[in-house]
C-alpha cells in the first residue's frame, strides 16, 4: 500500500511547527501504524533527513505511551484501540493521512509528535492512591469485596493514562482520567476510607494544571481506547458533591460544639 503523510514537525517546545508532506510506498496491510512510520524514518535516515519523533513503547496497547491525532481523531479511526494497535488495513490504499500531536494546554509539545503528559502524574500524586505502607496490611481475604464492585473497579482501573480523553475534548478536560481513578478506588472498601479527601485533592490539582471543564459531549468516552465510560465522571461528580456536603455538615457540627 502507498500513502501520503502530512505530519506535524516541530523542533522543540519553543520552535514554530508546521505540517510537512511525505510519501511512503510498499507498506503491508498487516503493518501497524508505527511500523509504517518506522519505514518512513528509515527512508529519512538513509536519505540524510531528520526522522519524525513520536512516543511509543510497548506496541501492544497497554503502556499508554503512544498518542497522535490521526486524521483529527485521537488514536485514529478504529474504535477501542491505541495508535500502536492500529493497522494499515484500516486505511484505503493511496489516501493522505494527517498526523498531529495531542493538542491541549496542559500537554505542551516537546518535539514533533511528542507531548509532555506529566500533568497526569501530578494528578495521581495529588491523591490517586490508597495511603497504605509496605508491611502491616491484613490478609488479602480479610475483607470480602462484592464481585460486581470489584469488576466495576477493574473496568475503571484499566485506564492507560494516554491522554486521548483530554485530546478528544473540546475543553481539554481531564474528567474521564480522574473519574476513572476516583471510581476505581472509591468502589473498593480499601479505597473508600479516604475517598472524600481523594476526590477533592485530585479535582483541585486538575483545576490548577490548566485542564478545562466537562460539558458532557462524551467525546472522551468515544475516543477512549480502553472503553472507560462517562459513568465514571458521574460517579466522580457524586463523590465530589458528597465530599463537599459532608465537609459542610462537619463544619456545622464542629461550629456548634
Amino acid at each position, binding site marked *: 500500500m502507498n500513502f501520503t503523510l502530512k505530519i506535524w514537525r516541530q523542533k522543540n517546545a519553543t520552535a514554530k511547527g508546521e505540517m510537512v508532506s511525505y510519501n511512503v510506498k510498499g507498506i503491508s496491510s498487516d*503493518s501497524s501504524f508505527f511500523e509504517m512510520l518506522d519505514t518512513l524514518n528509515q527512508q529519512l535516515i538513509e536519505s540524510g533527513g531528520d526522522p519524525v519523533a513520536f512516543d511509543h*513503547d*510497548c506496541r501492544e496497547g497497554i503502556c499508554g505511551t503512544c498518542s497522535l491525532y490521526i486524521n483529527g481523531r485521537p488514536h485514529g479511526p478504529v474504535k477501542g484501540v491505541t495508535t500502536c494497535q492500529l493497522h494499515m488495513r484500516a486505511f484505503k490504499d493511496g489516501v493522505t493521512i494527517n498526523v498531529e500531536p495531542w493538542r491541549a494546554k496542559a500537554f505542551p509539545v516537546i518535539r514533533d509528535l511528542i507531548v509532555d503528559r506529566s500533568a497526569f502524574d501530578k494528578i495521581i500524586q495529588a491523591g490517586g*492512591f*490508597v495511603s497504605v505502607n509496605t508491611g502491616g496490611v491484613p490478609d488479602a*481475604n480479610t475483607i470480602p*469485596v462484592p*464481585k460486581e464492585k470489584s469488576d466495576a473497579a477493574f473496568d475503571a482501573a484499566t485506564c492507560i493514562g494516554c491522554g486521548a480523553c483530554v485530546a478528544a475534548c473540546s475543553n481539554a478536560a481531564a474528567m474521564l482520567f480522574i473519574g476513572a481513578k476516583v471510581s476505581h478506588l472509591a468502589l473498593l472498601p480499601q479505597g473508600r476510607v479516604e475517598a472524600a479527601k481523594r476526590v477533592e485533592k485530585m479535582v483541585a490539582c486538575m483545576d490548577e494544571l490548566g485542564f478545562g471543564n466537562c460539558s458532557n459531549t462524551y467525546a472522551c468516552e468515544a475516543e477512549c481506547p480502553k472503553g472507560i465510560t462517562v459513568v465514571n465522571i458521574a460517579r466522580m461528580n457524586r463523590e465530589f458533591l458528597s465530599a463537599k456536603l459532608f465537609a459542610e455538615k462537619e463544619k456545622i457540627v464542629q461550629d456548634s460544639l
Partner: protein
Amino acid sequence: MTRLNARIPEGPVAEKWTAYKSGSKLVNPNNKRKLDIIVIGTGLAGASAASSLGQLGYNVKVFCYQDTPRRAHSIAAQGGINAAKNYPNDGDSAYRLFYDTIKGGDYRAREANVYRLAEVSNQIIDLCVAQGVPFAREYGGLLTNRSFGGAQVSRTFYARGQTGQQLLLGAYSALSRQIAAGSVTLCNRRDVLDMVLVDGKARGVIARNLVTGEIERHAAHAVVIASGGYGNVFFLSTNAMGSNVTPAWSAYRKGAMFANPSFTQIHPTCIPVHGDAQSKLTLMSESLRNDGRIWVPAKMKDVEKLRNKEIKPSDIAEADRDYYLERRYPAFGNLVPRDVASRAAKERCDAGFGVGSTGVAVFLDFADAIKRKGHDAIDSLYGNLFQMYEQIVAESPYETPMMIYPAVHYTMGGLWVDYELMTTVPGLYAIGECNFSDHGANRLGASALMQGLADGYFVLPYTIGNYLSAEIHTPRFDTSSSEFKLAAEGVTDRLKQIKNCGGKESVDSFHRRLGKIMWEYCGMARNDAGLTEALYQLTELRQEYSRGVRIPGGLDEYNPELEKACRVGDFIELGQLMVRDAQQRRESCGGHFREEYQTSEGEALRNDEEFAFVGAWEYKGRDAAAALHREELQFKEIKLSQRSYK
C-alpha cells in the same frame, strides 16, 4: 580463585530469611534521612523498591527512560502472579512453590533465594489488595485463583489478562504517594548511561536527559538497578521498544559480574511473525493454555490443503489432529513449562507440520472449551486477549483457532547478586528481571511479577539497611569529584564518537542484523558450530557498527536515534557474551538447549556433575575476553532429577 560469595545465611532453608532479618543491622530514622539511594527503573521491582525505601525515610531518586513511571514494561504482563496462599485448599505451601520454581528452572537457581521468594509471596498479595489492585474474585467476594504452566496447584492471582498493568499501577500509586511526600524524586525521560564508583563502591550514576540532552551527574550512598531484561538483543521480542540492557551493562563494565547471560526464555504462545517490517512480537498469555488445546495436522496432505486454503482448520477431523503436547506429556498436557512447550512447537514446525502462510505457527484451539464452558465464560476469562488477537491478526479466536509461535520473552540471566541482592560491586544492587537470581534456566509463568515485587517490597528494604548501616558517617558526595568528572566525560566522548562516526545505515538496520544472528544461533536450539559462527558474525557486526551508523540530529536535543544507538551498541557486546556463555555450557538445561546434549526422546539433558554452577562473567576490558567465575550450586533440600512432565 572465585570471587563469588553468595553470603547465604546458615541454618535450614525455611529459617534462613527469618534468621537473616533478625541478625541484619538497622539504620535509625534520623540517619536514613541522611542517606541517598538511586533506583534505576520503575517497573514492578523499581517502583516497589523506590516507594518502600522512600517510605522508610531514605532519600530516593528514581530514574526511568519513559515519560512516566507507569509505562514500564511490567505493565504488559498478562497472566498473573503466583503466591502460596493455598486459598483453593489444593495442597499448596511455600515449600511447594519453592520446589516447583527450582524444578521449573531446571535446577540452576540458588535454593536459599528461591525459598525466600516463595516465603514472601503471600505478603505481596496482601499488600496489593490493600493498595486497591482489583484481582479477580468469586461471587462470595473472596479472591480466586487459576492454574498456570509448570504447577499442579492453582496458585495464580490475576486481574483478567492485565495483571501486570494492575500490579504496576498499584506500585506506581505507592510511588506517586512518596513523590508527593517528598521522599522520592522522579527523574523521568532519563537514560542512565554509566555507574560511578568511588573507592570501589557504587556512588552514583551519569544520566542523559532525553529532552535537553544534558549529561547529568547524580550521587548516592547506594545504587539499585531495576532496569529489566535484555530480550531486545534479539530485536524481535515481546519486550517494549525501549527495553534495554544499558544500565546493567554499564555496571558490568564497571566490575559487576554478569551471570548466565545465555539463559533466555522463549515464550510458547506469541503471535507469529508477519513480515520484514515487523518491529515487535505480541505475547498471548500463557493462561490461554488452561483452556486452549495446541495442535497441528497429523497428516501432511492436510498441512498442504490448509496452506492452499482448500480447507479450514475446523474441517480437519479429530483423529487427524496431532495434539502433540497431550501426546508427549500426558501428565501436564498443554500446561508443560514454557521451554518444553516452545521446543515442541519448533520440533513440529521443523518437521514440516507448521500452519499459517509461513508454516511457522501452530494452532491454539478454544472450540472444546467454548463448547464445554460456554461463550460467556470464555469471554470473561480471556475476552481482552481474544480482542487483542483479533485486532492484530484480523481473525476471531471464537470462530477459528489462534495461530501462535514461540518468541523471546524474558531473560533469566542478569547481573550476579548475592543473598542480599548486591552485585559484586559494593553498594550496587540489582533487583527484578535484571538480576539472575531466582529462575535458573527457565522461569515458570506468573513468577516474574512475584519476583519483581518480592525484591522491591520485601527483600531489598531489609538487605540494603545492612549495608547502609555502615555508611551513616559518609557525607553526601560532591559530583564535581574526579570520579564523576571522568565518568561524565566518558559518556560524552562515547556519544560524540557514535554521532560522528560518519556511517550511513540506521541503528535499526544493525539491530535487525544482530537479532537475526542471535535468533539463528543462540535462540531455541544451539550447537557448538553455530555458536562459533555467531561469534565470528558478531565480531564483524561490532566493527561495522562502530563506523557504519548514521545518527541524525544533535547531542543536545531530543534525539531518539541517539538513544537507540547507545542501546544497540551495548546489545551487540552483550550478544557476544551470551554466545560465549552458551558455548561454555556444554549441557542442555531449561531454555538453554544444546543440540549435542539431549535424551533419546529429544528432551534437555543436564550434566549436573560438571555444570551445576552459575556462570558469572567478569569484564576484562573492551577488547579482552571476559573471565568466567563459577558459583557452585548446592542442593540440600531438593534432589536433582531429570525433569519429567510426562
